[in-house]
């Protein structure tokens, strides 16, 4: 009878791959599928694909401040940009900005997500308040924080002096270090909601029975955290980190609105540098070269993301 047993598995695998291929349909339909996808593809190739091509072109050709293209100049724009001390400075600041914001966000988000997954009174209220910064435009968050930390009449100094601390007129945004630190803190605050959401999704995917089993096996709370929660959360954390790196690396409004990259370019990151080169100084070649460099880095992150999600998928299938 074992012969028949193996027949069954063979044909049920067949049935599964049949379902997975999603091929339950009639012959004429691949065309319909393409037709339905076409508008979205057309929109995105025009609005995203063409500018990619155009930026590449501007990076490689002579271009005047009105965008007229001239001779092919090879990597000259890249050499120009990379040898601009402000570009190099902005690049370093981008690294600091991205690492601190993403690092701080993950450090805070994991415990917060775990607490928010506990069953306690008013959990929905706490959840909503913590996710709230997500709902507000980054631009407006930046405006409000710019006012909050305003030296003369901001609510931060007002509150600190009320608590008896000597910050009556401290101009936070006037000094590069404090300005950058405050921008990083705001960056962390606005990244927390998304990260908490992903990690909470990961937490709900861990079956309760695992904890019950480990409790029966005599594991302490700490033990079950380190040997169940953390390992099973890992794929979600990896993805949260990569996506956050992408978002933070690209984040424009916070720095643009709070300090405009100043004082003296000390809070510039690549994205604000590129924007200034293009729309303030009209230095399109430099801006395009910077854009291409950033775009290459983004593709690298995206590739990393795709490999990560792919490997978690295969891990799930095993």
């Amino acid at each position, binding site marked *: 009878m074992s012969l028949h047993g193996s027949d069954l598995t063979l044909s049920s695998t067949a049935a599964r791959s049949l379902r997975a291929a*999603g091929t*339950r*349909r009639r012959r004429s*339909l*691949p065309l319909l*599928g393409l037709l*339905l996808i076409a*508008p*979205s593809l057309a929109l*995105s190739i025009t*609005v*995203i694909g063409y*500018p*990619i091509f*155009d*930026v590449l072109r501007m990076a490689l050709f002579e271009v005047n401040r009105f965008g007229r293209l001239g001779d092919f100049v090879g990597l000259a724009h890249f050499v120009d940009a990379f040898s601009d001390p402000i570009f190099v400075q902005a690049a370093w600041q981008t690294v600091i900005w991205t690492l601190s914001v993403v690092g701080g966000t993950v450090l*805070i988000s994991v415990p*917060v997500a775990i*607490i928010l997954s506990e069953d*306690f009174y*008013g959990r929905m209220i*706490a959840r*909503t*308040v*913590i*996710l*709230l910064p997500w*709902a*507000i*435009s*980054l*631009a*407006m968050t*930046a*405006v*409000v924080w710019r*006012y*909050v930390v305003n030296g003369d*009449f901001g*609510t931060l100094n*007002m509150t600190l002096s009320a608590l008896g601390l000597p910050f009556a007129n401290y101009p936070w945004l006037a000094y590069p270090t404090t300005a950058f630190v405050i921008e990083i803190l705001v960056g962390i*605050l606005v990244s927390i909601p*998304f990260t908490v*959401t*992903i990690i909470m*999704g*990961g937490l709900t995917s861990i079956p309760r029975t695992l904890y019950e089993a480990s409790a029966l096996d005599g594991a302490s709370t700490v033990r079950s955290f380190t040997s169940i929660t953390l390992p099973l959360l890992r794929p979600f954390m990896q993805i949260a980190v990569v996506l956050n790196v*992408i978002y933070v690396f*690209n984040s424009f409004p916070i720095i643009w609105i709070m300090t405009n990259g100043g004082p003296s370019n000390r809070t510039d990151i690549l*994205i604000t540098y*590129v924007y200034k080169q*293009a729309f303030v100084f009209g230095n399109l070649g430099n801006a395009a070269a910077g*854009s291409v460099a950033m*775009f290459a880095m*983004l593709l690298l992150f*995206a590739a990393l993301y*795709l490999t990560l*999600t792919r490997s*978690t998928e295969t891990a*799930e299938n095993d």
Partner: protein
Amino acid sequence: MTKAKRSILCWAALSPLLVVAIFPYATMLSTALKQKDEVFAVDQSWLPRGLYLDNFTRLLFERNFGQAVLNSLTISLGATLLSLAVAIPAAYALTRLSVPGKPFFRNYLLITQMISPIVLIIGLFRMFAYFGMINSQTSVIIAHSAFYMAFAVWMLQSYFATIPRELEEAAWLDGASRFTGFVRVFLPLCLPGVVVTALFTFVSSWNEYAMSLTFLRDASQQTAPVQIAFLTGTLYQIEWEMIMAATLIASLPVAIIFAFIQKYLIGGLALGGVK
């Protein structure tokens, strides 16, 4: 541990973050209700003197902020409709039909979701300038839909996948054409998913700053976030009480929408984005 005890612990642990999260709202509200002399007074306090609403009326009627809100509304509605119009068919094709190159299209969408518009903003600007669409809200609508469409497709896909295929098949056997089956059976069932996706696209478009800032140079065309940021850029004394009133007007509606849809995001993002 009792639930009451646990609740106290949880709230205590979360309190620093909660304070920081609420701080800007408190600032907004408190400042928006103050009069000018209160804002710049030496002795500041959280509580305004009284319920002073003139900032709002002056903002809407004297400063024409109403126009900015209206612009934001037009752009967000336009972007929501356009991105749903292309995302719904695409998501349907991805969940229900065999499409050549489906994995490629999926990855392409994922990657476009990660590209920041600002990296391409010079190219975008030149393209819209070429078509004479700078200062036209259509350019922002098109740009927003292109960038937010990928997420909409992802969200819709994860909803569509939960609708059993058999329902449509039953409709076909009952005599419904593919289109009738889609409209009378499929669409009513995934309406909640479509609504959540629409709201999310709306909120993203409403809040977007960089593209609106770059393509809409004329003050009469600008969106609320851009106008607010502009108000802070003046060389003269910044009218914080007006700005805070404006941020409140621009944030409150989306914050309320968001509070309603956030619980769908926890499921949707985790499933759609991660898996």
